[in-house]
C-alpha cells in the first residue's frame, strides 16, 4: 500500500533578484516525503540545500523569492497560507534545527525563557507546566543538568550543548516534520555521534518525519531512508539509501563518494571533484554539472537531461549515467 506523502513539493523555483542579475538558486525541485520517513538531502555548499529547507518554512531571505511551484504539507497548500496561519504552523508542526545554533538562539534571553515562550505560544502552557516539560525535554536530549541549562544563556553553553538545546526546542511542541540543516557539521566527532544517536532514538520512538540536510555522505547511511543528491538547485539523483549507496548512477554522486576518506587507504590520492560549484548567478546551460563532469557528452552542454527511472524509487537525471 502506498502511503500519502506528508510533504509534497512540485517544481519549486526560488530566485534571488540581485543587482547583477537573477540567481536561480532552486530550479524546479520536486520531491515527496512520506510520514515517518527520514529523507537526506546531500550536496556541496552553494547547491541550495539550506534555501530549500528555508523555503519549506517560507523563510527565504530577501532578495530571494519563491517564484513557482507547490508545497503541500498534510493536505495544506503552504504557499497560500496567511501570516497568522504560518505562525501557528512554524515551530509547532514544522520546525528546523540550524547548522549554527548560536545564530538562532536569542543571546539576551535564558534558555528557559526561550523555551517557555515557545511552549506558551503553541501549546498555551503556563510557566510551571512549560518548565516541567522543558526540563524533561532537555533531559531527553542527554543533558545531565537540565535545571542548570534552563538558567543559562546561549553563550555559556558549548557547541554540542547548544545543538542539543536547539533539538530539544524544535521537538518541544511535538512537530510532525523536522528539518535538520547540517546539525552536526560544526561539532567534534564524539559529539556528532551522540547527536546522531539521539536523532535516531527520537526517530524510533516518535515516528518523526524529517529532512536531513548534509554534505557528508558517511553519516547519511545510518540515518536516512531515502537520499536526494542536489547540484546547483537541481536534483540529480534520488532513491532509497541502499540503492544510492550500492549503486550510484550519477557521476556527481560517484564523485561525492570518492571525496570520502577511507580509513584503510592512507596517503592515497583522492579522486576529488575538480573545480568548485559555480555561483547560481552564472548557471551553466544544460546539465549544471557538465563543466566538472568527466562523462559529459555533447548534449549535456545544451539541455538538462530528462528523468530516468531504474526502479520505482531510484531516479537519475543524466545523459550518461554509470548503469548499463
Amino acid at each position, binding site marked *: 500500500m502506498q502511503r500519502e506523502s506528508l510533504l509534497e513539493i512540485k517544481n519549486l523555483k526560488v530566485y534571488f533578484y540581485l543587482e547583477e542579475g537573477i540567481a536561480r538558486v532552486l530550479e524546479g525541485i520536486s520531491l515527496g516525503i512520506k510520514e515517518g520517513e527520514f529523507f537526506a538531502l546531500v550536496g*556541496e*555548499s552553494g547547491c541550495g540545500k539550506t534555501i530549500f529547507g528555508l523555503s519549506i518554512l517560507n523563510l527565504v531571505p530577501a532578495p530571494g523569492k519563491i517564484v513557482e511551484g507547490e508545497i503541500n504539507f498534510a493536505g495544506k497548500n503552504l504557499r497560500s497560507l496567511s501570516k497568522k496561519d504560518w505562525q501557528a504552523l512554524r515551530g509547532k508542526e514544522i520546525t528546523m534545527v540550524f547548522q549554527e545554533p548560536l545564530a538562532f538562539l536569542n543571546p539576551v534571553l535564558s534558555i528557559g525563557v526561550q523555551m517557555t515562550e515557545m511552549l506558551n505560544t503553541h501549546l498555551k502552557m503556563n510557566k510551571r507546566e512549560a518548565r516541567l516539560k522543558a526540563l524533561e525535554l532537555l533531559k531527553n536530549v*542527554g*543533558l*545531565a*543538568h537540565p535545571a542548570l541549562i534552563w538558567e543559562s544563556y546561549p553563550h555559556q553553553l*558549548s*557547541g*554540542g*550543548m547548544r545543538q*542539543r538545546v536547539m533539538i530539544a526546542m524544535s521537538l518541544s511542541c511535538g512537530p510532525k516534520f523536522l528539518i535538520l540543516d547540517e546539525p552536526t557539521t560544526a561539532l*567534534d*566527532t*564524539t*559529539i*556528532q*555521534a*551522540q547527536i*546522531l*544517536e539521539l536523532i*535516531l532514538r527520537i526517530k524510533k520512538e516518535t515516528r518523526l518525519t524529517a529532512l536531513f540536510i548534509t*554534505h*557528508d*555522505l*558517511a*553519516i547519511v*547511511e*545510518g540515518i536516512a531512508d531515502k537520499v536526494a543528491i542536489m547540484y546547483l538547485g537541481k536534483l540529480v539523483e534520488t532513491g532509497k539509501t541502499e540503492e544510492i*549507496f550500492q549503486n550510484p548512477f550519477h557521476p556527481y554522486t560517484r*564523485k*561525492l*563518494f*570518492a*571525496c*570520502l*576518506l*577511507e*580509513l584503510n587507504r*592512507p*596517503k*592515497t*590520492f*583522492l579522486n*576529488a*571533484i*575538480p573545480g*568548485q560549484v559555480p555561483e547560481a548567478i552564472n548557471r551553466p546551460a544544460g546539465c549544471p554539472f557538465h563543466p566538472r563532469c568527466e562523462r559529459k557528452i555533447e548534449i549535456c552542454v545544451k539541455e538538462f537531461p530528462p528523468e530516468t527511472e531504474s526502479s520505482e524509487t531510484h531516479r537519475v537525471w543524466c545523459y550518461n549515467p554509470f548503469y548499463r
Partner: protein
Amino acid sequence: MLENAQITILEVKDLKKFFPLKRGLFYKTVGYIKAVDGVSFSLRQGKTLGIVGESGSGKSTLAKLLIKILEPDAGEIFFRDKEITSLPEREFRKLRKSLSIVFQDPFSSLDPRFTVEKIILEGMELLKENKAEKRKRVFRLLEMVGLSYDALERFPHEFSGGQRQRISIARALASEPELVILDEPVSSLDLSIQAQMINLLIELQEKLKLSYIFIAHDLRVIRHLSDEVCVMYRGKILERAFSEEIFQNPLHPYTQTLFSSIPFIGKKTFISQTVTVEEEKPEDRLCRFLPRCGKKKTLCEENEPFLKEVLPHHFVSCWQC
C-alpha cells in the same frame, strides 16, 4: 631519503602553557587553564605528525607555541637541535623563515586590504632575494597551489573558502619552510574541497620534502595524512604511536571513544562510548579523562598516570594499559 627520515627536525620537551583565570574587583588570579600541560614529542624530517583532539584540548595553543606566537611557561622546543624558546627575537628571526603556519579560518587569516601578490610577497620578507626573483617565485607558488595568475591582483574576499586556503598555503610556503604547522586547515571546507586540499598537501610534501605538524579534530583526515599520531585531551597527550599502529590498536579509553565515533560508509550506527557531553572539571592531580572514563579503577582515583611505552613505540598514559 632513508637518511633524511632519521633526522629529527622538531623536538618538544615537557611544554607547558597556563592561562590565568582572573576574577573579581581586583582582577585576582583564581586559577589556571592548563591549555598545554607537559607535552613532549618529536618529528622526523619529511614526515607528518598528526595531533588530534576535541575542541578545548589545547591543540591550537600548542600550534602557537611552536612558532612562538605564544611564549611557553615551561619546557623546551628544539628546532634542528637549536632550542628556540629561549632564543632572543633577533636570533629567532633567522630560523623563522623555516617555520610556517596555516590557520583554520581562511576568512580571518588573510589581510583583506592586501592583494594576493602582496600577501605572498610578505611571506618572503625574510629572504634575501631581489624583487624579480621574488616575483618569479610568486608565480611558481601560485602554480603549485593550483591558482591562476590572474589571482595576483585580486583581494581575498573575491575567493571562495577553498581558494583562500590555497592562498594561505602559498603564503606559508613563500619563505621556503622546512616545517609547516597546519592548524585545522581543511575543517572549514566542504568535503569535495577538502579532498582537493588533502591531495595538494600530500603532493607538496613529496615535492618539497616538507615536514608537517597536522592538527585536526577529524580523525579521517588525520588517518589519511599522518605518519605518527598524538591524541590530546585537556592539555595532555594521552596516547602516541605510529598511525598504522594507533588506528589498529588504540589502547587508551579516550582514543577508543574517539575512534568509535568516526563515521564511515558501511557503519550504520553512531554509538559513541561517552555518556554525557558535560563533564565535571577533572582534578589536576588525576587523569584528565577520569570523569568520562568507563574503565576507571581505584588506582585511577589515586594517582595521575604518565606516558609510558607499553608496546614498541606506542605510548599510553593510562593505568589500565
